[in-house]
């Protein structure tokens, strides 16, 4: 998958690869599948599916292991400290590498003197970077002919050293002398848009996306630092506004957020002539292998990437990146393994961020709420990269008669952005969902009634019903700013949208051994969302054994290819392949043991750790004993993802967040007290893990809305808070009471009918829900994040100037 874009136009082409050429209609069968939300809209629908597909699963209630909140398979390893992350890998003779980073935001590198570093007693290797990864690249590379890559942000890696201890590496890195020829720079979005602004690139430049999305459009104009607009039009928006009876319009601004995964980016690379082995903290073992093989021009078969455990990514960890290629180069040079883990400062500066946004959003509607026009003009900076588009929610949440979106990236001398949990969507929804609320106020309509009118998504319709009946929503005072006293309470809601992306490069192998043990293998990595556990649940369901009996091997490119975990693709892409392989292996198993058991395979089933006869002709035999009758030592089946059964249907997911806030009108503090999060996640494979992800999305979203802010000094171009105490992240005391309500929604698309949750999980909509709750509390819109006390007080002091920012 090239990338995840924010609009329907791009989405369709990315959703899935074409189905493999069909040999004829005969390899299809018609099945009946459960569709809809149990308790609300559940019904049966027919689907044409490949003949080899396993029997249709009923809804979760009727399954034994799938859909149950089973304990995380690797929970014990994590709570005891046994789980080995990339940062923990130690190999004999391993060296510690450290980057030398640019100390200035924009410069040509005149010279790099490594002699002092080389003579440091602990140093074993030095590497000067001649090709830097990340960020946009010039369409016409001849515009910039330099020996070393031009420095476009402070913190860009320039060179690296490898030494016997981390301390020695740090000392040696400080001894590398880099001579810069400074170029004027700009780090502020507004200044970068100005006509006479210093140019980040001498010409037009574009950035590719990653497996996790991000990147930006390529075929757009560029004027100065402004890369865009990328325009999308549906009907005539001017006519739409002429048809409107009510118009709401406002400017919304969101800040740059850094991913701040706890385990930093990094690898341990071990270059041997016959094989490059790399332990990587990544969301995509496949993406790391591909990039390393490409960069060094070596066969993919001779690159092995291992990710046993990884400490968070949130969209920024795809590909080998600078740490990967530099560590591999240093290992090749020194002949021993090299570890290169970024430090916390580098993690903030050089490996991605959620781009900022500055949006003008205008919505026209009829008096009954029907939207006649949506017009969004957005600017945002992904530093020296692109990917600040945020039109997804405006384009995909509601029905409208006309739409025009104009997305612009603005280059600044800052680290390149990267996909971050629902790229563009928290920003876009912050503006859209507050504007829709404002429209409801103007139309004197209830915010849920208005959404019922303009939102056709069948699952969000159910979710709104759940919200409407909730105690939290019922406690909302319909009159904004009604509380007396300085601390005012408010309740608000907002909706989200995310898309169904399927990665066809998803495969798994199932092995049944003669001793009755079962294992499943896939290169997929468990980034904390719990695919390891879900795989065991699927095998348990298929073989009728408890999940702890299943050995799950993931995070190694030696296993069948697995999806890169970005865009909520992992569970919905991989689990059908896992189930299909489990089904086929179980059928082969029954066929092999049936004769020895005096039965026919068709009469046998696997239930509760036993092989049983459906007709009762045979006494039940334990699975282990039956396995002893296998004619071979090992039965295997490998399956790759089958395309979605009906690609015309159910392409988006949605959720609703309701936030209760307290706003201290004297101090300007916003405190989120309670959150109700109602979410569509298809068939939840493991509800406990799904709820964990939604909790996380909510907390990350609160953190984005109220606290986090990457601050760059305009005079020096340096980040002033590249740590975890001045870069504020919500912690235990900022965590509200969160109630998650999962809405099971069956869509009949695969043998597991699983969906994803990572992006839709709260993070898209909670910011706008807080914004709407703040308005409900104080009667004033706060249109800027983070909503710090200064921003809130400023908004309170200028209530009449709705369009002006604090």
């Amino acid at each position, binding site marked *: 998958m090239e990338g995840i874009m924010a609009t329907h136009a791009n989405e369709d082409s990315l959703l899935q690869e074409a189905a493999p050429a069909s040999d004829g209609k005969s390899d299809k069968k018609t099945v009946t599948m459960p569709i809809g939300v149990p308790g609300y809209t559940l019904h049966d629908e027919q689907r044409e599916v490949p003949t080899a597909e396993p029997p249709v699963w009923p809804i979760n209630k009727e399954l034994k292991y799938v859909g149950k*909140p089973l*304990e*995380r398979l*690797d*929970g*014990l*390893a*994590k*709570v*005891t*400290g*046994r*789980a*080995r*992350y990339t*940062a*923990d890998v*130690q190999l004999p003779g391993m060296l510690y590498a450290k980057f030398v980073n640019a100390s200035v935001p924009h410069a040509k590198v005149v010279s790099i003197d490594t002699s002092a570093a080389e003579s440091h007693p602990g140093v074993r290797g030095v590497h000067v970077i001649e090709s830097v990864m990340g960020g946009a690249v010039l369409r016409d590379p001849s515009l910039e002919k330099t020996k070393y890559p031009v420095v476009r942000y402070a913190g860009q890696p320039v060179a690296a050293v490898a030494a016997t*201890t*981390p*301390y020695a590496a740090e000392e040696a890195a400080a001894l590398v002398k880099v001579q810069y020829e400074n170029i004027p720079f700009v780090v502020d979005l507004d200044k970068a848009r100005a006509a006479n602004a210093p140019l980040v690139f001498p010409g037009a430049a574009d950035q590719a996306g990653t497996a996790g999305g991000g990147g930006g459009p390529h075929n757009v104009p560029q004027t100065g630092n402004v890369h865009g607009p990328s325009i999308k039009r549906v009907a005539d928006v001017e006519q739409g506004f002429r048809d409107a009876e009510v118009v709401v319009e406002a400017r919304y601004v969101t800040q740059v957020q850094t991913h*701040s*995964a*706890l*385990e930093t980016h990094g690898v341990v690379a071990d270059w041997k002539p016959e094989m490059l082995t790399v332990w990587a903290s990544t969301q995509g073992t496949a993406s790391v292998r591909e990039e390393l093989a490409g960069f060094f021009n070596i066969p993919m078969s001779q690159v092995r990437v291992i990710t046993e*455990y*990884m*400490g*968070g990514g*949130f969209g920024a960890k795809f590909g080998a990146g600078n740490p990967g290629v530099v560590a591999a180069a240093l290992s090749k040079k020194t002949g021993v393994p090299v570890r290169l883990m970024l*430090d*916390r400062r580098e993690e903030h500066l050089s490996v991605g961020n959620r781009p900022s946004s500055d949006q003008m959003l205008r919505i026209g509607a009829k008096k009954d709420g029907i939207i006649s026009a949506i017009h969004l003009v957005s600017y945002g900076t992904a530093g020296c990269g692109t990917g600040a588009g945020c039109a997804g929610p405006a384009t995909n949440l509601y029905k409208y008669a006309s739409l025009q979106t104009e997305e612009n990236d603005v280059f600044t001398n800052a680290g390149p952005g990267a996909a971050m949990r629902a790229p563009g969507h928290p920003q876009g929804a912050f503006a859209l969902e507050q504007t829709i609320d404002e429209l409801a106020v103007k139309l004197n309509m209830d915010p849920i009634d208005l959404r019922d009118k303009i939102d056709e998504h069948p699952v969000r319709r159910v979710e709104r019903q759940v919200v409407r009946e909730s105690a939290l929503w019922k406690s909302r005072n319909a009159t904004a700013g009604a509380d007396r006293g300085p601390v005012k309470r408010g309740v608000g809601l907002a909706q989200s949208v995310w898309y169904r992306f399927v990665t066809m490069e998803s495969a798994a192998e199932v092995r049944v051994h003669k001793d009755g043990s079962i294992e499943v293998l896939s290169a997929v990595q468990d*980034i*904390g*969302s*719990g695919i390891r556990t879900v795989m065991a649940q699927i095998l348990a369901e298929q073989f009728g054994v408890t999940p702890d009996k299943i050995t799950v091997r993931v995070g190694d490119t030696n296993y069948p290819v697995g999806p890169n975990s970005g865009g909520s693709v992992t569970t919905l892409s991989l689990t059908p392949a896992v189930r299909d392989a489990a089904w086929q292996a179980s059928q082969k198993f029954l066929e092999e043991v049936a004769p020895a058991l005096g039965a026919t395979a068709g009469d046998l089933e696997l239930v509760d750790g036993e092989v049983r006869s459906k007709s009762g002709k045979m006494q039940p035999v334990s699975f282990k004993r039956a396995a002893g009758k296998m004619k071979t030592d090992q039965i295997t089946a490998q399956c790759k993802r089958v395309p979605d059964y009906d690609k015309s249907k159910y392409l988006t997911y949605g959720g609703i967040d309701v936030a209760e806030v307290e706003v201290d009108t004297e101090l300007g503090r916003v405190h989120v007290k309670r959150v109700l999060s109602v979410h569509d996640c298809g068939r939840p494979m493991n509800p*406990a*893990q799904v*709820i*964990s*992800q939604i*909790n*996380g*999305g*909510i*907390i*990350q979203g609160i953190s984005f809305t109220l606290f986090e802010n990457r601050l760059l000094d305009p005079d020096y171009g340096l980040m002033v808070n590249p*740590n*975890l*105490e001045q870069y504020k*992240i919500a*912690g*235990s*005391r900022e*965590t509200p*009471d*969160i109630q998650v309500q999962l809405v099971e929604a069956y869509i009949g698309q695969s043998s597991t009918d699983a969906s994803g949750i990572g992006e839709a999980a709260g993070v898209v909509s909670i910011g706008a829900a807080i914004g709407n709750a703040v308005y409900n509390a104080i009667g004033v819109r706060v249109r800027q994040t983070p909503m710090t006390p200064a921003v809130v007080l400023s908004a309170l002091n200028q209530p009449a100037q709705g369009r002006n920012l604090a």
Partner: protein
Amino acid sequence: MSDPTRPHPHPEEDQAEKQTAGATGISRRGFLKGAGITAAGTALLDGVQAFSREASGASDAGVTVLGPGPVPVRLRINGKEQTLQIEPRTTLADALRIQLGMTGTKVVCDRGACSGCTVWLDKMPVNSCMTLAVDAMGHEVITIEGLSAEGALHPLQTAFVKHDAMQCGFCTPGMVMSCAALLEKNPHPTEQDVRHAIAGNLCRCGTYPKIFAATVEAAANVRRA
């Protein structure tokens, strides 16, 4: 302030510092002085000197200079005596992770802002990235690997698994150590107590709600046991 031959400008601070040190065994100033030069003055540092005199001679001013090369450091970790040959600037976190291969303790911010590296010194949770290994001498160090007796799990560990109080798991060892320390001091914690105890522990995946639930439940199980 790093020059011990000059009179201390703030005797009252010194007094307060000593009281803190008396209560906890570790002083902030002790840490700062330990960064390169370890000076005599506290019982703890005397211990360091006694052990490392063989590596470094005492200077005329009564100050022992350790390093910069490796010195022998004897630590008691999870009930076991360990002698390491490390540079005096080595943090306890690095000594555990790199020298001893005990990688359960994680380093996240490397400056005391996230508590990912939490271990116990005499049952008090400390940031091991902000503690020099030499300053841990004479103290009982407990790490995530040593929290539970051989083969058994601490009730908190069981509760974390049961409540799914983890996602990526990178903050989990630090969270477990902070919450277990809370239970040592307060067998009846409320959710508010847990929030307070882990206010310095950062989790980026957002597992806090389940950590609160797991810890409150584990406390009940500890009381019953």
